[in-house]
């Protein structure tokens, strides 16, 4: 569903993403872990067609992001890092707009809005202006908008940012329930969050993919060295510095 082949992104002399390759299949939930500025968001921005890769190729649902961006966007649900929303719109009107612009309408759209509102617990703010919503509600509005059209590929950049612990648990259950028939990639800089949602982990730092591993394998490594999971991740990051 997602195929990233030797992708590089340069901003002038700065290399934000450096020769990254990985694949994500149907039914997989993959966590994208790395410190701030590691290149996670840049990679997601390329996968969602917002930024063109400087080199390499990205295919989403079988379509090339550079050659067939509209085909990619139709199959993609994307929550950007800062979750910018139209502040001057009411939540229900915003969701309807997001459905209409994706070619949805009538009873089908109403059903999908009802589903998204239920899953993201948005009843309380449905008639409110977005600027009146708390950070947690805004994040859930962004997630609802990204999933409204029932996409096959879901990219979520820091999706739990601004959610309280109870909401994080509900979000985890919600995302896990979406697994079937879809590929989900979400970024975070918090290991515990990735640990609770996904089995597979991509660790990135300074634009380079340092590890493509399962949490099970990482846990085994940590256990063999008698260290915590976090320390095993830090070892991987430090090894890059030493190299």
């Amino acid at each position, binding site marked *: 569903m997602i195929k990233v082949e030797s992708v590089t992104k340069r901003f002038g002399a700065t290399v934000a993403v450096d020769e990254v390759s990985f694949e994500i299949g149907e039914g997989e939930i993959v966590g994208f872990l790395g410190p701030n500025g590691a290149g996670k968001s840049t990679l997601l921005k390329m996968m969602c067609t917002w930024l063109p890769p400087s080199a390499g190729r990205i295919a989403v649902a079988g379509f090339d992001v550079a050659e067939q961006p509209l085909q990619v966007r139709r*199959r993609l649900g994307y929550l950007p890092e800062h979750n910018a929303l139209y502040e001057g719109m009411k939540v229900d009107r915003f969701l309807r707009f997001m459905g209409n612009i994706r070619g949805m309408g009538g009873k089908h759209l109403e059903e999908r809005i009802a589903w998204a509102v239920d899953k993201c617990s948005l009843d309380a703010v449905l008639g409110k202006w977005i600027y009146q919503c708390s950070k947690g509600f805004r994040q859930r509005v962004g997630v609802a908008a990204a999933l409204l059209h029932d996409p096959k590929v879901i990219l979520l950049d820091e999706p739990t940012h601004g959610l309280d612990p109870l909401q994080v648990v509900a979000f985890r259950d919600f995302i896990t329930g979406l697994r079937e028939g879809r590929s989900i990639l979400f970024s975070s800089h918090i290991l515990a969050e990735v640990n609770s949602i996904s089995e597979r982990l991509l660790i990135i730092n300074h634009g380079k993919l340092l590890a493509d591993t399962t949490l099970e394998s990482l846990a085994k490594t940590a256990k063999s060295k008698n260290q915590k999971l976090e320390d095993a991740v830090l070892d991987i990051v430090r090894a890059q510095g030493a190299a």
Partner: protein
Amino acid sequence: MSGSTVASIGFLTGVRVIARREAAQYFDSKIAYVYTIAFVVLANSIFMNEFFLTGVVDMTAFFTTMTMLLPLFLPAVTMRLWAEERKSRTIELLLTLPIRPIVAVAGKYAAALLLFGMFLLGTVPIVIMLMVLGEPDLGRIAAGYLGLFLTGAMFLAAGTLVSSLSADQIVTFVSTVLVCFVFVLTGQESVVAVLDGLFPSVEFGTTLYESFSIRPHYDAFVRGVVGLPSLIYFLGLSALFLGLNAMVLERNRE
């Protein structure tokens, strides 16, 4: 398996959806009401002042003065269109939706045109008053309105383009005012004379007047002449600005 929705949206439907959102933004934020009232009050005052001085059942002076009012009002309509999207980062949300940038540009432009249409509707009582008071040349007035609409449409297209180049609405407003006034002032006799004097060998002022300024085209409409070259001038430049706007959005993403 999920029942994923892979719907596509046609050009006109996309434009309509974007335009509806933009128009709602104008009305929800009260911008539409404030701008329309201000424009209508000023435009009608300008006409009444001229009308009481000359007492002629004609709108020529009104149409001529409007070319100085539009470069001040219309940039205020377009300044937020893309600058606000850039500043609030919603541009990333909008341009990763399954629509081409030209659809988003056309939708925003359509909403701005709608607002401008409201401005012009607010001046229709002048025509009604003239019809009550005498027998104005309605064909000439209609041509004048068409010229005014096309000029405004061109300024709105220029403003939409300029708005895509900056995230700062003030910079966008001032830049658009300047661009619009260049189109107007290159048609002023005094400006043409000065430029001709500076570059006599190429008659720079006259060249600009004939090939660049709105004046010869707009004046033809005000005289009641709807010519194909003038229609091509306004529509062609508007299309050029909108096309450039889509190109800017496609390339300027970093």
